[in-house]
């Protein structure tokens, strides 16, 4: 355990709490910079998805994790960013202009969504954002002059000062990495500023926040807008990564996927967004591994120990592994298990492990116990 000797109030809000941060985050940055040279093409492509999901995750964390306004409509913000990019690119606008423009436009839409959200809370807000998601999906399918409707839209490669960044290349990887770092820095700076404190206050108690003089309307709309803008930025990258977008990509399932990102990563800290993204994106390769190799390996094992019907077992296993909707089932089970057993997510698990070693013989489970409340508070607020 490293005791920090506080000599200054500014120490509480410093980004790098102590010199050790230089080492740990410097190493992380170095590893991230070296990754493309160490991994194969497929893995690199997945890592680019991790970076994009992390950006969305941070956007969602600002809204859901720190302001306490749950949104199940973030796929819609992503869609707005992606379509802005596609539309502008088709009209010959350069990347460096339409990237921020996608963020700004999505931010503006986010503010518009934020206004009705002022009057809603809890479950009503969740449902309203779901409704927003459906409406955007439908608009994307019908507004054919802009979005090309259900035929979808082809996105060309990024052209940056005459250099083409292919969607699987090093250049695109570093672009995504750079934008993620930028977004993390922006988010950290917002969260340590009075604005961020106001967000957290609103999350913990709207009534208390208001009595401390926080203007709920301003800060809720700000949270929505910032969150949407960050997501729109990710949407622009997402469009380029996929190179083809169509309305049925931005469904409720995608919004749920984003919620899973922050839920599995941990809602309390920005680390959660990245950890959760790694988890969610890697479900796909894991599934294909499960489909291709697992039945063979298990069947071989059964054969080795001399089970009588090893061949039949192998066939059953491969039937289960290739069943349609396995991904949905795995998502479902993962969500349930995480909420029941690991409510603070992966980052929470890391904190618990770290604390265990820091306090070595004195660690107690109760430190992380959640409080249960049985008094009906959410209905009359």
């Amino acid at each position: 355990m490293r005791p920090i000797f506080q000599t200054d109030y500014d120490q509480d809000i410093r980004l790098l709490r102590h010199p050790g941060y230089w080492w740990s985050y410097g190493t992380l940055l170095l590893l991230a910079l070296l990754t493309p040279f160490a991994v194969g093409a497929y893995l690199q492509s997945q890592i680019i998805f991790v970076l994009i999901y992390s950006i969305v995750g941070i956007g969602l964390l600002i809204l859901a994790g720190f302001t306490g306004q749950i949104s199940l409509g973030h796929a819609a913000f992503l869609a707005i960013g992606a379509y802005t990019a596609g539309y502008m690119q088709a009209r010959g606008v350069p990347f460096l202009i339409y990237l921020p423009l996608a963020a700004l436009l999505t931010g503006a839409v986010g503010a518009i969504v934020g206004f009705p959200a002022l009057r809603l809370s809890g479950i009503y807000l969740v449902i309203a954002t779901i409704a927003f998601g459906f409406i955007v999906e439908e608009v994307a399918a019908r507004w054919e002059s802009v979005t090309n409707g259900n035929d979808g839209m082809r996105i060309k490669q990024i052209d940056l000062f005459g250099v083409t960044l292919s969607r699987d290349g090093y250049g695109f990887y570093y672009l995504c990495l750079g934008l993620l770092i930028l977004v993390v820095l922006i988010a950290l700076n917002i969260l340590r500023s009075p604005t961020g404190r106001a967000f957290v206050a609103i999350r913990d108690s709207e009534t208390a926040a208001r009595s401390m003089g926080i203007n709920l309307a301003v800060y809720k709309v700000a949270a929505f807008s910032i969150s949407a803008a960050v997501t729109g930025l990710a949407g622009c990258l997402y469009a380029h990564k996929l190179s083809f977008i169509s309305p049925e990509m931005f469904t409720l399932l995608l919004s749920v996927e984003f919620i899973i990102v922050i839920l599995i990563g941990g809602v309390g800290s920005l680390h959660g967004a990245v950890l959760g993204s790694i988890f969610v994106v890697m479900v796909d390769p894991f599934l294909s591994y499960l489909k291709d190799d697992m039945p063979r390996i298990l069947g071989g094992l059964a054969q080795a120990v001399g089970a009588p019907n090893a061949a039949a077992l192998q066939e059953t296993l491969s039937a289960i592994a290739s069943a349609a909707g396995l991904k949905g089932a795995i998502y479902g089970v993962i969500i349930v298990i995480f909420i029941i057993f690991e409510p603070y997510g992966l980052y929470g698990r890391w904190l618990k492990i770290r604390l265990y070693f820091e306090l070595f013989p004195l660690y107690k489970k109760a430190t992380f116990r959640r409080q249960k409340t049985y008094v009906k508070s959410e209905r009359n607020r």
Partner: protein
Amino acid sequence: MGNVGSGVLDFLQQVVGGIALGCVYGLIALGFVLVYKATEVVNFAQGDLMMLGGFFGYAFIGQLGFNYWIGSALAVLAMAAFGSLVERIIVRPILGYPQFSVVMVTIGLGFALRAIAGMIWGTDDLRIDTPFSSGVVRFGSLVIADDKLSVIVATALLCGVLWLYFNKTRMGVAMQATSQNMLGAYYMGIPVKRVFSLIWAISAGVAGFAGVLLAPIAFIHTNVGFLGLKAFPAAVLGGFGSIPGALMGGLVIGVAETLSGFYLPEGFKDVAAYVLLLVVLMVRPAGLFGLNLRKKV
């Protein structure tokens, strides 16, 4: 004159179709409301429970060869048992935690149910033969298909039974008490845990009922669960805590959807429910029938 007459008839025909659809939404919304009222859990898996009810009906009637009436009764009972199982295993450990955790758990449950049903029964459209599958009833020149009429009648009956149960029986009143204050009800000697089990059983049973009723109109398919997302606006319109409200909300949504499908250009049908929802939420954030209480500090 004839033209106007046929216009009115068209309208009435659409309204009746909308009411039948609205009854299905209302039934799902009823399931939401029952669980929400008693346990303050919003069950996002309600639509998937309905889907499962349809599959149970198929299993009993189509696969095991029961008579339609016995088969549907068995399906509803099986769903009720399944509902209390879900409550015991998944919902009870997380009661008392923030609402959002519970919402996410039920979303996860919905995913899992959809996938498992797909693995067991496949993803083809299935159907069961019912006494209502063909045939129509005529009121003057208004034609109502039997299957739609059966939905309307069954919904009305079910609502009557539920109303009697909640207002006239001991357990029903205990459920009302639990829904108002869990802790207070517990102090008064109400077995809150059993109430929760029972509420989940009833709500899953209602979902199973809706699933079996819907079988002749829509097919039995894993994606039927998405109707649950249409039932959300219904529950919210009704104020989420009110049983007649849920039904009214369902009817409003059903009629609005059918009419906008008939009179407005293509595409409005699918979003009508959500647009209506957003408008109502902006005007009356607690729904049309909801109570708007403020926490006192």
